[in-house]
């Protein structure tokens, strides 16, 4: 083992020589690639058919990478300037990123419609590029003009594989955005609940880039391995925990058309992913060779065994009521406005909704159930030995899972992507020109509502975490098995009898629906009122006593 002294740690890793070398390297690579791009351009001019396509591809790829290399060289050369520019333009960049992702998600949807249109009138196997071009330009002549390029771009979209790849890219982009926003929002909400401000400085307005900065900081942290730890499993654990958390989003429907892959078994696919994610935690606890993390892992296993049954039963209620596992179908069934949401259908689905939310709290190890990484008892539970990016992966997976579970609750019980206004009112606008469809999306049903509801339940999870203390392990088991389980069994049985005996139009059904809708409506209005009241006299409530600051204070 080489002797690692303090000086080694303090010496900057990248000396001036490194920088000069990197600068030269990037410049040479950039110029070479651009030259290659120009070369491909000439080839494209000459080649035909597939050769032409390959050449164009070459031009695009070589050009892009060359430009990136030159940009990297520029950043290395003028690092200070770039830093300042980034800081001042921080917010526009962030907002641009958000709008960019929305637009990026919107464009494929439009293109798919166009491609399906063209594919419709070419039955049979794959449609060739020439046929695309003909459809685009209207005349059959295969002139290789700009239309050919457009056809080239549309051609791959007809295959399901490319659509899936694009969907996965979209999902990963959305999830990382959600996790980034979630982490920042949690710290702001926690701050406000504790009469302090939360992050205010990093990246400008209200420290929006705090989670970005945390991510970068964690990236360059030293990678610590413990002696005696099982290296392979220690490395594997974060990924076994992270991948299921991402797969959750494949089945989640953002709106009727916007779903990565509308699985026929979407609901239990998500249930399976929640189950598999626990393995990562167990692995981390075991591989850290640390008594505290071992205890944390065992707590997670006990907790998992106790909350999984009530969670499964709570899922059965909507399945039984709507008779399908397909999440988009479940969403469609709740399109009739606020009162048709499944939670207000009958008292038993209301109970199932509450039990579902509590059980998913336990599954994300949040709020009162955060025993596996209980910092006051187990130092940091299964995360004790993790540092740097591996720890960030666990953290990332937790927030992704939190949002996914919150969104699932809104899809199953609280009118997925439908707004409280009945969708039938806006039916006329549904398929009008683009701007009408946009207004319809905002007012009646669209991904906006799905994300809003998701973040509403995400807020409730945050709210619980920063008010409630942690419960003990035996109390978790008692709560899940002795309280939640019988509750869900009652809900299941009750729901069966309700569906069997009570006709949808009967006065009892309508009365119960009205009562439950009133309860739901009142809670939302009450929360809004509390937030408003809190905001209006925040000065008094926060308790800033000293009107005139005390000397030295």
């Amino acid at each position, binding site marked *: 083992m080489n002797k690692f002294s303090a000086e080694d740690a303090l010496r900057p890793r990248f000396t001036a020589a490194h920088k000069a070398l990197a600068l030269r390297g990037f410049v040479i690579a950039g110029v070479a690639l651009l030259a290659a791009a120009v070369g491909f351009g000439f080839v494209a001019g000459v080649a035909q058919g597939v050769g032409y396509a390959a050449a164009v591809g070459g031009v695009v790829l070589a050009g892009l990478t060359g430009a990136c290399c030159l940009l990297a060289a520029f950043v290395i050369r003028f690092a200070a300037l770039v830093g300042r520019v980034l800081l001042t333009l921080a917010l526009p960049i962030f907002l641009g990123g958000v709008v960019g992702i929305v637009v990026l998600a919107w464009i494929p949807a439009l293109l798919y419609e166009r491609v399906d249109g063209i594919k419709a009138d070419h039955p049979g196997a794959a449609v060739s590029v020439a046929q695309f071009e003909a459809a685009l330009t209207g005349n059959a002549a295969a002139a290789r003009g700009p239309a050919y390029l457009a056809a080239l771009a549309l051609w791959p979209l007809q295959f399901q594989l490319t659509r899936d790849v694009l969907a996965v890219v979209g999902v990963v982009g959305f999830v990382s955005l959600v996790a980034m926003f979630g982490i920042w929002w949690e710290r702001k909400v926690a701050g406000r609940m504790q009469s302090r401000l939360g992050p205010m400085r990093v990246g400008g307005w209200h420290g929006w880039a705090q989670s970005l900065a945390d991510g970068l900081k964690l990236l360059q942290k030293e990678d610590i391995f413990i002696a005696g730890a099982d290296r*392979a*499993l220690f490395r*594997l654990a974060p990924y076994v925990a992270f991948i299921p958390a991402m797969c959750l989003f494949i089945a989640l429907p953002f709106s009727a058309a916007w779903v990565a892959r509308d*699985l026929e*078994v979407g609901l239990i696919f998500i249930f*399976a992913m929640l189950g598999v994610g626990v*393995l990562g935690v*167990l*692995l981390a606890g075991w*591989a850290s060779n640390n008594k505290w993390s071992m205890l944390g892992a065992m707590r997670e296993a006990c907790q998992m065994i106790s909350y999984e049954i009530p969670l499964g039963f709570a899922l059965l209620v909507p399945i039984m009521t709507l008779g399908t596992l397909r999440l988009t179908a479940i969403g469609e069934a709740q399109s009739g406005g606020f009162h048709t949401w499944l939670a207000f259908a009958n008292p038993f689905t209301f109970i199932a909704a509450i039990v579902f939310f509590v059980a998913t709290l336990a599954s994300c190890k949040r709020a009162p159930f955060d025993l596996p990484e209980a910092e006051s008892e187990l130092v940091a539970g299964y995360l004790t030995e993790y540092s740097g990016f591996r720890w960030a992966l666990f953290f990332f997976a937790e927030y992704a899972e939190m949002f996914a579970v919150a969104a699932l609750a809104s899809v199953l019980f609280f009118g997925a992507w439908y707004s409280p206004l009945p969708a039938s009112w806006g039916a006329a606008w549904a398929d009008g020109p683009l701007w009408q469809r946009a207004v319809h999306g905002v007012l009646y049903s669209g991904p906006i509502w799905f994300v809003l509801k998701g973040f509403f339940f995400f807020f409730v999870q945050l709210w619980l975490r920063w008010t409630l203390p942690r419960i003990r392990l035996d109390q978790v088991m008692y709560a899940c098995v002795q309280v939640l389980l019988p509750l869900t069994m009652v809900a299941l049985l009750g729901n069966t009898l309700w569906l069997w005996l009570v006709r949808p139009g009967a006065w009892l059904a309508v009365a119960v629906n009205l009562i439950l809708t009133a309860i739901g409506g009142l809670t939302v209005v009450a929360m809004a009122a509390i937030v408003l009241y809190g905001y209006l006299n925040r000065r008094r409530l926060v308790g800033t006593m000293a009107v005139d600051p005390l000397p030295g204070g």
Partner: protein
Amino acid sequence: MTRGWLYRLPLPALLAASALAADGAAAPAADPGKAVAFYLVAAVTVGSALGCAIATNIVRMAMCLLGTLGGVALLYFLMSATFLGVIQLIVYAGGTLIVIVFGVMLTSRAYGVKLRPRPVEVLAALVVCGALLVGLVAVLLRTDWPAAPAGGAAEGTVAALGGSLLSVYLVPFELASVLLLAVMIGAAYLAQPALPTAGDGAGPEE
């Protein structure tokens, strides 16, 4: 010859080759993407199954088991039997494996326990596996597999499955539920803490 010479035989190569040879005959016709995916997933499954058999650290064995079960689930997905794939994930990867890992963590005393089967045991295992393999391959080659419809199974398998479970196969369904009930009662009885009959209670003052 060092102690572990048995493990250095090119076993994986033998098994993989035979697997490839066996299903070379019925190469899937459809688009090449699926074929590549299939071979990849098959390799993962077989590889982790082997890892599970050969691994010495007990927890690594459990993780290879996860790889195998996950691989099988992926295979189901590839054959677009999504319901079966998800059930496989829930029951095996999510359920049984957790109990195994839980059991492994609670009872295995030392971290570094190495499971070293004696060579004669390995030999016996190889013989049995070889026989099993030959039998499987023979069955595989002799039957003519009906080519699945091109676009994968028709949609709505879940509904059809549910319907058939409660109509055609109702009796086995009920029998299975009775069996599960018995298993649950047995488990509850076994896990019941020993009634404090003998002296050594956990009280603080003896």
